[in-house]
């Protein structure tokens, strides 16, 4: 392969993994923006989403023979709904009663929810990897020098579409406006008659549903799911949210793409390779944050959402 062929291939690899990071990062960022909580359980929501997707997909296994995508889209929507509700439930049980408590307490309940989800799925699956069979073939085709499969293109487009829909939701609807308002000043919003608890619940629903979507897309793309699958991507998505400017949604998307591209390209640098790629990416990020502590889109005094 020539330099440009590798460049294009790694660009595409980076965009795809980066869009997964971005989808998960949005959930971290939204929740932080609205209630200033680092939601540790978010990575496990992503993992739970993949498993709920696996279950719903197996229910449709015999319904849509010959049209794999229809089954995938249907199970994606159902799982987003279910996992979104799981997010709301977690918020109601573990976070809402803690909103007036010291910030550290709610951090600990988040950690506890994470442990609960993680261990539950581990026990249910006996710690084993589970195959995620979709019935999709992986016949590849070339666009110029770039080797693509239908799956990869559809997933990348879907991830970007979800981000655009979310962006429109935040900027063009009353609910979105209420979210932005709450992130500015919760108490005043309450005085102005905004149902803060309801908006917080909606925020959790949207963030969790997006994480579930990312989880299922990862299942479709990689072909296996595992109780451990959320851990690393959770860390990286959280990093993405911070690089982008935590609390700012377009920032989370940009941060995700940046991290994905960094990882993908750093493997091509001699002496960095796959062994040192994470060291390289994170050193870069430390330097970046030293010079721009508020992240790509963050400003010292900005509206967070």
């Amino acid at each position, binding site marked *: 392969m020539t330099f440009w062929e590798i460049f294009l291939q790694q660009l595409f690899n980076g965009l795809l993994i980066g869009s997964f990071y971005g989808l998960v990062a949005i959930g971290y960022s939204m929740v932080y923006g609205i209630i200033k909580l680092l939601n540790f359980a978010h990575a496990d929501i992503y993992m739970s989403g993949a498993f709920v997707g696996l279950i719903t997909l197996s229910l449709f296994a015999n319904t849509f023979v010959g049209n794999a995508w229809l089954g995938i889209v249907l199970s994606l929507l159902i799982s987003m709904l279910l996992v979104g509700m799981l997010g709301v439930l977690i918020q109601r049980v573990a976070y809402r009663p803690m909103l007036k*408590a010291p910030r550290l307490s709610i951090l*600990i309940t988040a950690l506890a929810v994470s*442990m609960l989800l993680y261990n539950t799925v*581990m026990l249910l699956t006996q*710690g084993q*990897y589970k195959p995620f069979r979709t019935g999709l073939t992986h016949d590849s085709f070339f666009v110029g020098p770039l080797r693509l499969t239908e799956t990869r293109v559809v997933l990348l487009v879907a991830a970007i579409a979800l981000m655009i829909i979310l962006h429109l939701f935040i900027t063009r609807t009353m609910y979105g406006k209420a979210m932005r308002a709450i992130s500015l000043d919760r108490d005043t919003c309450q005085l102005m008659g905004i149902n803060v608890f309801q908006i917080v619940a909606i925020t959790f629903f949207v963030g969790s549903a997006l994480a579930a979507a990312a989880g299922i897309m990862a299942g479709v793309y990689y072909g*296996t799911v595992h109780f451990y699958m959320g851990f690393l991507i959770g860390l990286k998505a959280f990093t993405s949210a911070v690089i982008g400017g935590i609390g700012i949604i377009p920032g989370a998307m940009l941060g995700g793409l940046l991290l994905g591209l960094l990882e993908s390209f750093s493997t091509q640098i001699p002496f960095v*390779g*796959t062994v040192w790629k994470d060291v390289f990416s994170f050193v870069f990020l430390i330097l970046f944050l030293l010079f721009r502590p508020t992240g790509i889109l963050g400003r010292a005094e900005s509206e967070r959402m």
Partner: protein
Amino acid sequence: MLKNKNVLLLMLVAVFLVFGVFGCGGPATPPADEDAGEEPAAEFEGEVLLGIMVPTTGSEASDGGDMENAALLAVEEINAAGGVLGHKIVTSTGDDGCDPSKATAAASKLISEEVFSVVGGYCSGATLPTLKLYGDAGIPFVIAASNATTLIDENPGWAFMINSTGDAQAAKALEWFEGLGVETISLVDDGSAFSVDLKDQTKAAWEAAGYAVLTEDRVETGTQDFSAVVTKIMDAGPDAVYWTAYQGLGALLIMQLRQNGYEGIIMVGDGSSAQELIDLAGPDAEGVYCTAPPKVDFLPAAQDFISGYKEMFPREPGAYAGLMRDATYLLVDAVERAGSFDGEAIKAALAATDSFEGLSGPVEFTPQNTLNRSNFVIIVAKDGKWALAE
């Protein structure tokens, strides 16, 4: 009042966390003492406690569970035949979770329970820190599966490895690649002690034989995306790719290599020799080779063991069940030769083992307490099952 409420909440959280953490340690441990009431005939002078150290949770819980089952089965057979030196064997399992810190905790637990010996050891990285602990406590340790060469240097003399070490596996891989006419290879590991060891051994053997290693890459445990690695390998275009770590990630690598159009030979190390690899990777696994430990399925001597295993546990014995059974029998054999449960005596008897006939072949040790022969075989994925490669 408010303070009290906070304290209460904190305590609740603490309970929650403890529940979560220890939730890791508990599961998948088949009842070890179930057979307590099933021996009406045999009269025992007393009971002795045998330690089993395998990962029963975590990413390698599947193989670890098989090994634990194999040991339980062997112990039941031995007890039914009158036990060892008139004593009934009872077992205690320490879960090493394929993790060095958990393994240290598991070893400490077994030592404090005063086991007379330990069998087990699956992940070399997890086994490594326990060698000194068992050595200091004077407890003989028969290692059934772990086989990184790094274990040899750290062994204070109390551990005995009945699986061939990494260099024997690398030699087998080299031999098979040469037979296939392979000239260039790419190596991929997951950063674990065992996989890095096998990678280094293979690289050394391969380059010593005058061939080229085109790329060496690493993927992290817990990651799913190997696209950057795959692009590098595709660019280098090796005749064969050798994956030296475990099946969960191995299946991902195989699928992503094939999806990206890699058509060369793929071979995996013994960590990936479970049926799970084929189940996960599906049709992409067809034709994948594996340098495997002597699995019971391929051992004519093991047919009774397999049927006994399936009778007792509702699953197939995994890749290391046979070795674990051999480890347990070898230990009992050594105790009988030693004539006591004294650690020093058992250790001396183990070192003096002379042509012990296990399911996986004869066991004899080198002065370094490693198996004195290579016991690896090459298997190939064919029609969704592993079969002995000819």
